[in-house]
């Protein structure tokens, strides 16, 4: 507004105070995500290996069978990764007592990972419905879409549940926060989930192209996009912590 050159006519400008970010922070106390995510152990890039493995295993020849197989592999890997994540990030509230109760900690971590995996598997029908609402085909391909939903919920929901320790209240407050994007981009796990969604969304783009490639079959590009996004997001989130 200050750049308006005065030209000798009267004008009225009403200034309204724009709520800036700092003010918003004052209104809503800043939300943080529990845990530390600086350990390089968080970067095993297993997703990359799985998706490459799926393609090598003939994803383009028989998508459904390979995807079911892949979902089982992903389930196993996510269980291990979830445990690593849970331990390394120390998202537990009783961080300071870690030394003393090593054995109890182990079982609690395992329990947490198992519950999180179970809940994320329960989430698959929701993922399926969302995929259909976004335009997944309804005639045929239902099984493929469902398996894609399994993959996605394992990749997106399970890590989130682990780092929030099944604390939905906190997850809700993060989603509600005005600085949700800042939070997402500075946390590898959140960032990975976010990019997984984004990657799947962008995964539909190559399907209509008339290249007649086998990988243009229905869920393959979405799956690859999801996995790719997951890896990319993890990297971005990991690096941006140090920026």
């Amino acid at each position, binding site marked *: 507004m200050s750049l308006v050159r005065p030209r000798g006519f009267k004008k009225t400008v009403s200034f309204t105070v724009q709520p800036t970010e700092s003010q918003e922070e004052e209104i809503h106390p800043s939300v943080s995500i529990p845990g530390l995510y600086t350990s390089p152990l968080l970067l095993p890039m297993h997703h990359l290996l799985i998706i490459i493995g799926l393609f090598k295993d003939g994803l383009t020849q028989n998508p459904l069978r390979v995807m079911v197989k892949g979902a089982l592999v992903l389930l196993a890997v996510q269980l291990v990764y979830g445990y690593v994540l849970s331990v390394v990030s120390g998202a537990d509230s009783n961080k300071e007592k870690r030394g003393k109760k090593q054995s109890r900690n182990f079982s609690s971590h395992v329990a947490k990972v198992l519950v999180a995996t179970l809940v994320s598997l329960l989430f698959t029908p929701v993922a399926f419905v969302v995929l259909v609402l976004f*335009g997944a085909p309804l005639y045929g391909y239902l099984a493929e879409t469902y398996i894609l939903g399994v993959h996605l919920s394992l990749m997106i929901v399970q890590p989130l549940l682990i780092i929030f320790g099944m604390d939905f209240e906190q997850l809700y407050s993060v989603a509600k926060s005005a600085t949700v994007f800042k939070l997402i981009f500075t946390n590898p796990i959140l960032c990975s989930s976010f990019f997984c969604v984004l990657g799947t969304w962008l995964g539909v783009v190559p399907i209509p192209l008339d290249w007649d490639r086998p990988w243009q079959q229905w869920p393959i590009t979405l799956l690859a996009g999801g996995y790719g996004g997951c890896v990319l997001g993890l990297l971005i989130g990991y690096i941006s912590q140090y920026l």
Partner: protein
Amino acid sequence: MDDLHPAEPVRKALLQQQLQVRTKIKHQKLKSSFVGYIVVLTFLAVLQFIGVYFFTLGFLLSRQVLPNIALCAAENGASNCMDARFSKMVVVVIDALRFDFVIPVEGAAEAAEGRLNVVDLANPYFHNNFPVLWELAQEEPANAVLLKFMADPPTTTLQRLKGLTTGSLPTFIDAGSNFNGDAILEDNWLLQLHANEKRVAFMGDDTWTALFDQYLCPALNFPYESLNVWDLHTVDNGVIEHMFPLLHPQNSTQWDVLIGHFLGVDHAGHRYGPNHHAMKDKLAQMDSVIRRIISEIDDETLLVVMGDHGMDKTGNHGGESPDELESTLFMYSKQKNTAFCRKDDSFYDTSSFGKNYRQVNQIDLVPTISLLMGLPIPFNNLGFPIEEAFGSVEEQLRAGYLTTQQIMRYRNESTEVQGNPEVVSLYSKLTDLYNSLEDGSESSTALLEGFAEFQSLFLEYCKGLWAKFDLVLMSLGIAVLILSLTVLTTYSRSIPSVRVLTLSFEFIGSFIAMSLLGLVLSLSIYVVLRPPAVSLKTCLLTGCAAGITIGFWAPIMDRFSILWLWHQICDFFVYNLNFFSFMGLFFMFLHCLIFASNSFVVWEDKLILLFISTVGFSCLYTAAFGNMPRAQKILGIAHSLTFIVLSRIVTMINLCREEQGSICIPTFKTTWWSVLLLFLLAFIVPKIIKSFYKLSSSYHSAAPLWIETGMTFLMLMNACYWSLEFIENDDYLQKYVSNWLSLEIIKSFKLAIARIVLFIALILANFSWTRGPLCVKIDFSRLSTSTNEGDASHGSEPSESPQESERPAATILGYENVYGSSFFLLVINVTVAVLIVTKPLGAISICILIVQILSLLELFDILELRRNLIAPVTFGLLGYQHFFSTGHQATLSSIQWDVGFLTTQSIVFPFTHLNILLNTFGSFFIVCISLPLITLWRLPPTAKPITILSQIVTNVTTLMTYQTMTSIMSFVFVAHFRRHLMVWKVFAPRFMLSALLLIVFNVTLTLVTMWFSTRRLLTQVNRIFGK
């Protein structure tokens, strides 16, 4: 102070008066500000029209038509004609006679062996019902020949008739003029017949009369209305009625050439599709007609039976799929000695629907007919004589030689086809060979092939050449459009809204002055400099466009600097860019990018759904995690879910375009359940709208009349109309009903219903809307309501001031949605009008659109997205979504021509066109007209109507920017891909859609949205409530 005290009442009265004057001035200001906006928008529209016009002129192809008429006498004394082999000719054109209709298809036996899948089975409706042509070709091989007849796209009757008579290639621009065909002036065989004093009798499709009226024998000319596709029999019966008396030996001296054009097959295809018993009946009728003609003709008559194009699997045509291009040619003569020279049987392979059957081009008929009838070949002909039609190799050679000479003469005369020297060398080689030829039969076949090669070489060259575009005009068009885009964005985003109003008046003057100046300047440039290759129209329009642009920028440059305006735009990105506006920009960007690939244009409908559901899910997220009261949150979530689910459901109604292939399953058919749903919707939709009105407690006074009475009634009428239509089309029901109700009565019922509904919806309801219905109710009974609402009720009675109201406080129910509830009534009017011209499944889609719009409006209110960029963009996306789900695609063949005959039996200028327009762009009309609701929905009467107005204008210009951007990109890419394989199939139809949409958006938004509705509503509410 003291001396003023006794004059307190006077002061008060003065104040009152002052207030009144101020209100009046404010009201006046509001009214005049509308003038400013509308004038600016009008000039912008003019600018865009000029851009569209330039581009269209440069893009749609043109061909140089030579006025030369061929003569029999050649320069060197030789003749350009052959001796007439037939003295008379009967030409029977059966419109849309696809090739596989006339050949035997033996799918049933092969399918039993399990070799073929179901698709390859013979169809009981259109296969094997017209066997006479094939039977004759088999039984009398010396006297009959049946060939596959390949049309050049576009496959519309007018284009085909031009090709079939002149032998030249059609250009694309003519495709649009199918409604008023212009007379053909270039050389054609009808002209030659006329010039050689042969009498041509004609009966059938009146397109012929439009094209060749001057060459037809006036006493023997029986044209019939051709575009009424609902009528299967009038034309055919008329042709039969006039043809057979003329064929009778005692009358056959009256004519030399008889042309009959049957339309029944084409109309059956358009109306019912090929899979219908009407098609079977029609083909059987044609079979008997041809048999009868054959029994009537004498030995000296040549019978030519042909189709002008085929039809696709839905029965429509216009494009260039094999089904549309493959037609039939049959020639027959009773001459005793061998009439035709049939080739080896392996050429006539009828397996797999005649895929490998010998084919000839449609233009090849032209030299064939001319030479057989002893006429010179039309001057512009590019075709090659059909070998079978000539009795011996010598004749074939002679025909090939004459045609080659004619093509060469054409090449020498025309200035635009001289670019390929290899044709000349080939020609001289061939003529030398021909002249030195004695009668060695081996070399003569080689020579014949040489002639054919010469012709095909030249034809390919011409085809390539006539796809030549005027790049200067195209770039000029794009440049004008880009200028209009900068004007639009500057006007809507860069200039502070406080200034826009004052500037608008300066714009009026400068627009008029500058465009006049531009006109005068360009005229003088044209007169003085006489630039070559620039027409006066182009020159003037360029001047006008430049004038408008300068007229816009002059007052702006006077006030602001470019740098500052640029900073304004940057500021938008820095400060206003939240998640939603980013998403809006992103979708605009992506929608522009789809034009870069034919695949994305083909699958545009699916992409639109992806965008819309993303908006829906983002709204859901914001509603679920936003900071708002619990009740609001639940409402927000509910509305988002409604929106998402409805968007998904509506995309299940679709019509596939050919390029989408087997992946796409079309669902857009009129079925019994869709008609039943119409009845159900007639009750449900008004109820839903009512519940939305109830949410803002504005279901009062005008609303019940409009929604529960009017809308339900009209929608019931609509359902009745389409059930009658369904009864008429369904075999079983038709037989059942016709026992007690004649079809004529049903037809007149339908006409009456459609006319009544359209009249009420478009004229009566809109007129009553201009009287200003408000959906409010003054409620005196409630005393406990807040006082500020009570205050406003006295606005119309200036004698009272707020302090004096001692009576029970009156509440105005529906006060908080005064604008929205009233405005939506207009949307209902338009919706009902669109509903009647939309087929049942499309009507369901339109109903869903209305609910989607209402949910979205509530969402925008709850999530405070009214002023966000995403709001108008989502509206635009909704328009596209429902364009596709009302059974349209960006192709010519998906235009639902048949709805043109809803209100009239024949083509009557405004009504037929209005119906087709409403049908094609219905969703866009609704979206454009409901656009101000983004601002107005749930808005209580405001003291600052001008602010509201400026917000509406921002939304209007944003939607226009969105459309302009997609249109520009569509133009740019159709220009870029002008040599692309898919240009006429994918890019060009999409370009036409973009161009038309730009015009529709401009006209609707400026005239209807701003001028007709918003102006009226805002001034009216301001008059009543504004103080």
